[in-house]
């Protein structure tokens, strides 16, 4: 108790010097929180969007299917058997058929991916219900990136050419029934979605699929064998690996940045500690002369240094809370080009400040402050009290 009182009294007594240290450390603290909160928020949003729009709780894939290799689409499809059909009817999985096709903007051929999805599916957020009806027209939905890139509006018609399973060419106009806005480029750029029934028919791939998106229910009921016979299963974590890697790399990058900032703040505390031990030799000598153990004196001084961090956290909370909670509400705007990196990123990131993040940031600041406060105090243990009182040693 004595140490605590003493520490704060000493600190506050030092006035400006203490507050300068505290301000810098509090900035480091708030920035650490801000950055990690932003990345956690991004991570959460991107994972959620990717699951809701693209991958559900995982995918059952044709063994040859590789989404990054458009040339495999030709062979990566097969019939949906009765067991899978039962799961489709139960709403646990939804089939998607993928094929390559061409469109002709301004008379130049451009390759795109044609994807078939059930208009009745509820598993993904895609507005597939808009694919219903059509009076003989093939209805299609596209994302806003595709719409912008090809200059398409709702109601526009465009010629699509494809080849059926036997390689026969065909072409037909499709009508853009809806343009959806999603943060996930993987279901948007250079892609056109049509009803799976239509795609199966025009490609002569009756009741076939390239892959299925599954929901949580499926994971529960098929815990033992996730991959049905003849198909392979790609788990959510596997599909989110890219995203996790990017977040990890961003965390490392921002870690270096706030690590440097923290180092600056700690440098100040270190300097202060060195000086206060130098200036207060007489005091230290007196403590020891009065019978205090050297260890206890070290503790007093260490605590005094560490107390900077406590003040910094308090100060940081005073101005950081309104600032950070503003961002939680309003989001952090992101430039639109960021999503051209191929990652799911929204126009605004809403940072997430979990309890874990706050506690770990506090611990990081306090413990690192404690370490730099302790290092200069080691001198005390070698101190001869009489010399110290005379101020002759340090």
């Amino acid at each position, binding site marked *: 108790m004595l140490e605590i009182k003493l520490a704060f009294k000493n600190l506050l007594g030092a006035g400006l010097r203490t507050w300068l240290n505290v301000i810098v450390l509090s900035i480091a603290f708030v920035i650490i929180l801000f950055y990690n909160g932003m990345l956690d928020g991004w991570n959460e949003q991107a994972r959620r969007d990717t699951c809701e729009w693209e991958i559900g709780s995982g995918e059952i894939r044709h063994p040859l299917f590789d989404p990054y290799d458009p040339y495999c689409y030709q062979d990566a499809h097969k019939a949906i058997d009765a067991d899978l059909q039962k799961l489709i009817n139960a709403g646990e999985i939804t089939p998607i058929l993928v094929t390559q096709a061409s469109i002709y903007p301004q008379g130049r051929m451009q390759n795109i991916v044609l994807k078939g999805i059930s208009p009745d599916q509820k598993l993904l957020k895609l507005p597939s219900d808009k694919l219903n009806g059509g009076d003989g027209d093939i209805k299609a939905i596209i994302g806003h990136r595709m719409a912008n890139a090809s200059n398409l509006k709702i109601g526009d018609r465009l010629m699509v050419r494809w080849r059926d399973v036997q390689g026969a060419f065909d072409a037909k106009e499709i009508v853009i029934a809806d343009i959806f806005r999603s943060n996930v480029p993987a279901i948007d750029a250079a892609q056109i979605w049509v009803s799976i029934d239509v795609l199966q028919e025009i490609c002569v791939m009756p009741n076939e699929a390239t892959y299925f998106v599954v929901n949580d229910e499926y994971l529960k009921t098929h815990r033992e064998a996730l991959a049905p016979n003849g198909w392979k299963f790609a788990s959510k974590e596997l599909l989110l690996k890219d995203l996790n890697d990017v977040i990890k790399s961003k965390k490392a990058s921002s870690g270096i940045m706030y690590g440097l900032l923290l180092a600056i*703040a700690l440098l100040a505390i270190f300097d202060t500690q060195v000086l206060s031990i130098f*200036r207060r030799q007489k005091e230290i000598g007196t403590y020891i002369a009065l019978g205090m153990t050297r260890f206890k004196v070290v503790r007093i001084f260490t605590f005094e240094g560490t107390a900077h961090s406590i003040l910094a956290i308090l100060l940081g909370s005073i101005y950081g809370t309104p600032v950070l909670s503003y961002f939680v509400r309003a989001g952090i705007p992101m430039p639109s080009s*960021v999503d051209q*990196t191929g990652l799911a990123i929204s126009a605004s990131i809403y940072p997430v400040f979990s309890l874990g993040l706050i506690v770990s940031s506090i611990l990081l600041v306090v413990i690192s402050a404690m370490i730099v406060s302790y290092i200069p105090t080691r001198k005390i243990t070698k101190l001869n009290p009489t010399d110290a009182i005379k*101020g002759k040693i340090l």
Partner: protein
Amino acid sequence: MKIFLLKGILKDKSRSLLPIIIVGLGAMLTVLLYSWLKGVIGESIIMNANFNTGHVKVISREQAKTPEQMAIDLSLVNIAELKKELKKNVSDMDWVERIRFGSLIDFPDSEGETRAQGPVIGWGLDILSPNTKERERFNLAPSIKRGKMPSKHGEALISEDFAEKFEVKPGDVFTLFGSTMEGGMAFQNFTVSGTVKFGAQVLDRGAIIIDIQDAQQAFQMPDAAGEILGFFNSNLYDTEKAMKVKVKVNAMFASDTDKYAPAAITLQDQEGMGQYLDYADAIGGILITIFISAMAIVLWNSGLLGGLRRYTEFGVRLALGEDKTHIYVSLLYEAVAIGLIGSLLGSFVGVLISYWIQQVGIDLGGMMQGSTLMMPTVIRTAVTPTTYYIGFIPGVFSIVIGNALAGIGIYKRSTARLFNELEV
């Protein structure tokens, strides 16, 4: 007096060592932070400029309609003349021609028949001229994993991951197979001189880099190129200057009615880069201000401490009859000296480390693979002219301010208290 003070600083370690170390560390951290931030924030801009957009890009009008989808059949022709014109009219830029292409690489078996094939995206760059900056723009030398830089025509660099997938090593010969500018068949043999890893998914999946002249030959494009990129000699993007160049270049060809006449676009005209640039500038500005202020506060504090450390000494000097103002001024001189020495040392070390990180980069991505991301996983610092002096701002100014504030105490000292202190 200055030399006397300097001698004092150098000889009296207790007076100078710690402050210099602190200022030095502070300046070093500032330099590192600054170059790191510049590197991180500028990374995708620099990468985009170097790989795709240049600061200003000249392409054919037809190509300018869809600048992202480079098509070899929409290339510029008569580029020697065009480059001469560009150099004449816009002299403070480095104008370089490039050919971007998509094609197939075919690896032969021992019979010379197809063993394996894979699609690649490729660049024809000026990598062989002695004064070319293209090698640096693509950061080729540090990116090489195996083998070496191409040193003569007919040599190529290919992605390490791609090479691994097809079991290819430096020295192997392959055939580039694609379409010529006119649509004919393009075949050209190359020797793998080395493999590269750029740290960006799109490129590492399958890319090839060959010399521009080899590309012109392979794709039958004599005196033609897909694009001519302009880079400011300062190597820094300047929105206003780029806009001026764009207007000027477009004016040069205003009377030309050809669909394939040259047209200029700037970096921020392309793929939402404009918005990103503004954003990056704003964020970078805010962060750098915060960090410099933090460092300034720390060193200011350090100055305060430095002044306090020497109260006893000042007492003695006052007792000896030295003028208060004289002490104060000498204190400030010393602060300047310490600030300069510390900043100099710190900046030196800081720039050295920054420069090193700029060269080798820090790979944060680890084993990122299998995606289409165009995102750098290797982060580098950026050493800009500012890097060299940024450390001095907190280093010198703050320490002087700190000492100046601490030194005010000198005027408050009364002779009575001085003798008290001297008794110890």
